[in-house]
């Protein structure tokens, strides 16, 4: 176990101790905060459901597989190994999906390979943009997140390009 595992428990204990020093009713305060969880989810759920239904449909229709095989020549042109094209495409939609793809790549090509290192960078150097947009912009009235989503996708893609480059140099 590395030292990073201690950050979280220490932080939470510190917050509670600090609060009790400040004479906060810790138990009531915690319960008050936790009470906000369900109303928040009530607002989130419809949008999360819509996005995930769409993502599943996208997967089942074979469109994502077709797209990744169509795009792999382009990717290899840009210096992204074509083996990780599915990961690049799944990453914006699903964190758990890309995690399972990452472990698959580790098992298939070995964790020491260039491909595995690129895949690590792709996995870790961006967020699941569509998932985040579903959650963050859920229930915000009349604000279309198209522009922020496009910005997120573009900057993450450039980061992937540079990341594969860094993997070759470093």
């Amino acid at each position, binding site marked *: 176990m590395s030292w990073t595992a201690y950050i979280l428990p220490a932080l939470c204990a510190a917050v509670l101790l600090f609060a009790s020093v400040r004479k906060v009713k810790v138990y009531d305060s915690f319960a008050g905060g936790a009470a906000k969880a369900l109303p928040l*989810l009530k607002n989130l759920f419809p949008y999360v459901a819509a996005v995930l239904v769409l993502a599943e449909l996208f997967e089942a229709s074979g469109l994502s597989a077709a797209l990744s095989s169509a795009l792999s020549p382009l990717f290899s042109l840009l210096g992204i190994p074509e083996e990780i094209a599915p990961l690049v495409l799944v990453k914006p939609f699903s964190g758990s999906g890309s995690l399972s793809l990452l472990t698959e790549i580790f098992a298939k090509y070995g964790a020491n390979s260039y491909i595995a290192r690129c895949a690590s960078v792709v996995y870790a150097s961006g967020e699941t943009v569509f998932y985040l947009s579903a959650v*963050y912009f859920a229930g915000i009235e009349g604000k279309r997140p198209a522009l922020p989503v496009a910005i997120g996708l573009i900057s993450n893609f450039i980061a992937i390009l540079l990341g594969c480059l860094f993997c070759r140099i470093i």
Partner: protein
Amino acid sequence: MNVLFLVVFIVCTALICVRDPSAFLPALLSGAERAVSLCITLAAVYAVWLGILQVAEDAGALRGLARGMKPLTKKLFRTENESALEKIVVNLSANLLGMGGAATPAGISAMRLLGAEENARYSRAMLFAVNCAGLQLFPTTVVSLRAAAGAASAYDVVLPILLSSLCALIMGVSLVMLLCGRGVRMGRAGMHKEGSDNGGSVRADKKGGRTERCDMRAGGRKGVRR
């Protein structure tokens, strides 16, 4: 989003009908099922983190932290809303420490709180872009996965990941400034000595009524201060 949803849905439905129409409903249902299980997980995560956050907030710890970072965050997000800035600070530090579970609830509250602001569109886009970069001081998941898969040096990806995340962050922030930031001058309005804010509102005219209005409001407030 509405157009995107419609187009992707129709195209996928057409494709699935060509291949295997009976797979259509199971796909929809399994998507919804994933949404339900995700929300149950999220409910647990939020209950824990919103609880801890509430304690930190009541203790005044968040306010202190937010005040310390205010010069930076105020400029970046161009908002004066204290409670939104508090949530943003929590969101950013949780992201840096790799605690996505703590970052998301704070981020969502910040998005809501920013709604009351004049620059809501800009501030929200900026917060979203910063979150999308996913900058992390130490990528725990990947490193432990690599170690488990038997990598010779599990840590050799840390530097490339950090660098490329930084690139994503810089790209995202500058794109938001470029594409959404025109005419949004509130964060800086107070610093201008005089005269220059007129130029700002003239430029904002082209962007349409919304931004123009908020520029005028910012100018008006400055006038009072003067």
